[in-house]
C-alpha cells in the first residue's frame, strides 16, 4: 500500500490570516505537502464565511513571498469568464514557476447568481450566459486548458539576428464553441512547466465531472474521488487513497492546520519534497497539445527591415 500524500484546504478567513503573517507563510512554505487549496469553501458547498479574498490575489502573494509551496486557486464561471480565468491561471503559473493550478467549481459561495437560465456569466450584462451547472464548469475548464495551450512556450525564440521574438504563426485560435464561444488565443504563453493542473471538486458520485473529449480534469477532490477531504479533528480515512485534503474549519486557525499537518506527515503520510511544479509533484504527464488543424492566429514572421 502506497502512503497517501497530504494536501491542505484553506477557507476564506485562513487566506487573510496566512498572507498577513510572515512566520505562518514561512512554515507553510516548508511543509512537504502536495498542495494547498486556496479558498476551498468557495466551491465545496459551504456557506460563505465572514471574510475571504479572491483566490488568485492570494496566489499572487504566495508566488511573490514563498519559494516552494504549491497551490490550487479556486474559480467558477458563475461571475467569471473562462478567458479571464485562464489569464490568471497562466500568469500565476509563470510567476510561481509552475507551483500553481486551478480547482474549477460549479458555484461560488461568495457571489450572487446571475439571471435565471443564465446564472453563469449571465450577470456580466453581455449577451450570453449559461446554466449554473457542472457542464458549464466543465466547459470552462476545457476552455482554460485549450487557452493555456494556444501559445506554445517554445515558440519564444528571441532570435536577435532575424528580429523574431516569437514564432507567432505557431500560436493558434482555440475556436471553442460549447457553453462558451471563445476565439483565442490567450495573451500569455503556455507556462514553461506546461499547462496548469486542473482539478474538480465532487461531494458525491453524482456531481463528478461530465467527462468528454479533451478531458481537462486531472485530479478529483472530495468524497467521491481518490483524494477525499477530511475535516481537521477527524481521523484519516481507513481505505486506500491517493491523497487526502486536510480541511480546516472556521473554528481553526492556520496554525492549528499546520500543526495537524505536521503530525499527519510524521504519522504515515508521504512527504512530497518542497519546490518544483505542481504537475511534477503529482506525477502528472503533460496534456496533449492542441490538434495540428487548429487555425494559426498570425502569419509566419519574416526577418524585418528598418524604416
Amino acid at each position, binding site marked *: 500500500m502506497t502512503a497517501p500524500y497530504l494536501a491542505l484546504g484553506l477557507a476564506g478567513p485562513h487566506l487573510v490570516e496566512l498572507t498577513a503573517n510572515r512566520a505562518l507563510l514561512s512554515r507553510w512554505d516548508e511543509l512537504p505537502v502536495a498542495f494547498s487549496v486556496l479558498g476551498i469553501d468557495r466551491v465545496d458547498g459551504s456557506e460563505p464565511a465572514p471574510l475571504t479574498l479572491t483566490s488568485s490575489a492570494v496566489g499572487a502573494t504566495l508566488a511573490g513571498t514563498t519559494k516552494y509551496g504549491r497551490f490550487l486557486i479556486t474559480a467558477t464561471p458563475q461571475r467569471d469568464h473562462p478567458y479571464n480565468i485562464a489569464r490568471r491561471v497562466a500568469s500565476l503559473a509563470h510567476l510561481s514557476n509552475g507551483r500553481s493550478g486551478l480547482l474549477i467549481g460549479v458555484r461560488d459561495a461568495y457571489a450572487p447568481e446571475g439571471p435565471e437560465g443564465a446564472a453563469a456569466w449571465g*450577470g456580466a450584462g453581455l449577451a450570453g450566459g449559461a446554466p449554473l451547472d457542472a457542464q458549464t464548469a466543465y466547459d470552462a475548464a476545457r476552455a482554460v486548458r485549450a487557452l493555456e495551450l494556444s501559445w506554445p512556450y517554445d515558440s519564444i525564440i528571441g532570435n536577435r539576428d532575424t528580429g523574431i*521574438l516569437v514564432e507567432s504563426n505557431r500560436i493558434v485560435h482555440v475556436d471553442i464553441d460549447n457553453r462558451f464561444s471563445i476565439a483565442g488565443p490567450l*495573451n500569455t504563453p503556455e507556462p514553461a512547466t506546461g499547462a496548469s493542473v486542473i482539478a474538480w471538486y465532487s461531494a458525491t458520485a453524482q456531481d463528478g465531472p461530465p467527462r468528454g473529449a479533451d478531458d481537462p480534469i486531472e485530479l478529483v477532490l472530495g468524497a467521491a474521488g481518490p483524494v477525499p477531504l477530511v475535516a481537521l479533528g477527524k481521523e484519516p480515512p481507513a481505505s486506500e487513497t491517493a491523497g487526502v485534503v486536510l480541511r480546516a474549519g472556521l473554528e481553526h486557525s492556520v496554525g492549528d492546520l499546520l500543526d495537524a499537518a505536521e503530525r499527519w506527515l510524521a504519522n504515515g503520510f508521504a512527504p512530497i519534497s518542497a519546490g518544483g511544479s505542481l504537475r511534477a509533484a503529482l506525477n502528472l504527464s503533460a496534456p496533449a497539445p492542441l490538434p495540428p488543424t487548429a487555425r494559426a492566429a498570425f502569419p509566419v514572421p519574416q526577418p524585418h527591415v528598418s524604416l
Partner: protein
Amino acid sequence: MTNRRSGHVLLGINVLVLGYLPAAWKTPLLKKDSFIDPQYWANLGRTAERGTLDALFLADGPLLGDPAYDANPIRLEPTVNWGQVAAATSRVGLVATASSTFNDPFELAERLLSWDHQTGGRAAWNVVTTRGAPAARNFGMPEIPFRDDRYERATEFVDVVRALWESAATGRDIHHHGPFFDIEGRLRVPPSKQGRPVIFQAGGSPQGRALAGRVAEGVFAAELTKDQAIEHYRLVKGFARDNGRSPDDIKILPGLLLSLGSTEEEARRRSDEIHDAGPAAYSIAWLSQAIGYDASRLELDEPFPEDVLGPIKDTQTFLGSIGFRESILAQIRRTNPTVREYLKQTRYTGSGHAGFVGTPEQLADHIEDWFHAGAVDGFNLQPDRLIDGLAVIVDELVPILRKRGLYRHEYETETLREHFQAASPTPAF
C-alpha cells in the same frame, strides 16, 4: 510661466512590459522570456521603490496582438502580475488596467479589493472600455459594442464596483438594478486600507473625460503640446468641479515616451539604435491603427494627403483612440512632413503620447516647466527600454528633481491614495 506651485510632482512609470520600443527585447541584458520571469518583474518594483516613485502602471486588454517582433502585446493578468510585485515592495503604488466591457462587476470588484488588501492599500484600477473585435470574439461577441454603449456600461459598472467596495466596509448588501446589471449582495473582503482602491481613467475621448471628471482620481492623459495639456488639464479638473468634487481629487499624469542619455547626442543615438532594431512595418501598422487609415497605402516620401487629415468619419466604429488621433493629426498639420519623415520624427517627439529624447537634466527642466505651467500634476514616464532605462530615471532624474524641491527624498506616505494627496495642489485656474 505662471505662479510657481508648491509641493511635489507625481511620478509614475508606464510599464509597457519591456519598454515602449518594440526592439527592447533584443538587449543582451534580457533573457528571451524575461517578460514572464518573476525576477524581472520583482526587480522593476524594487528599482521603482529605490526612487520613491509613486506608481507603476500596467496597460491591459483581453486579446493578443501579434508578438512576433515585440513583447508589448504579451499580457500577464495585471492583478496577478502586480500582486507578485507587491510582495517584493512596500510603498510603490500599483495601477492595474481592467476592462469594464469584458468583466463582471461583482467578480472584478472582489478581485481588485482583494488585491488592494494584499498590497496594503497601494492598488489602483485603470478603467478602460477596450477596443477591437479580437477582444469581443474571446467573449462570444462578433463585434465590439459602440463607443457610447461601452461608456454607458462603464459608468454603471464603476458605480456598482464602488458600491461593492463600500459594502465590504459596511457589511451591508447592495441592491443595484440598472440597465446593465442587477446585483444583490456584498463583498466579504477586508475593507481597503486606503478607503477604496484609487480609480484611474486613460484616454481623451469626450466620454472618457466625462467619466474621469465624475469618478477618476488619476488620469493617464495623452498630450503632445503644453498648451493643449493646459487646456485639457483645466477641462478635466473643471469636470471634477462640475461633479461637486475638488480639482485636487483628480491628478493628471500625461504619458511621456523617453530615451535618456548623458548627452543629447547619446540619447538620440540610443533612440535611433533601438528604433532601427525594430521593424518598419510595425511603425506603419501602428500609424494605421492610430489614425484609422491604412498607412501602407501611403507613399513613404510624400506628405500626408488631405483626406487622411480630415475629421473622423464615424466615432462609434473607429477602433483607435480619439485622443491619440487628435494629437497626431495636429502635429502632422503643423509640420507637414512626408510619411517617412513623420514616422522618424516620432522617435523624438512621441506618437500620441509626447516624446522626450535628451538628458536627465533636460527632462527635469521639461517636467518643471509643464508642472509650473499648470499642465500636469506629474508624468507617467514610458522608458524606451526598462531594464536599463528605469534605473536612469531613479538614479539620475529623481535626484535632480529632489534638489529642485520637486520630489520627496523618502516615502512620507504609505498608500497610493496618500501619495496622491501629498502631491502638489491644483493651481488656481
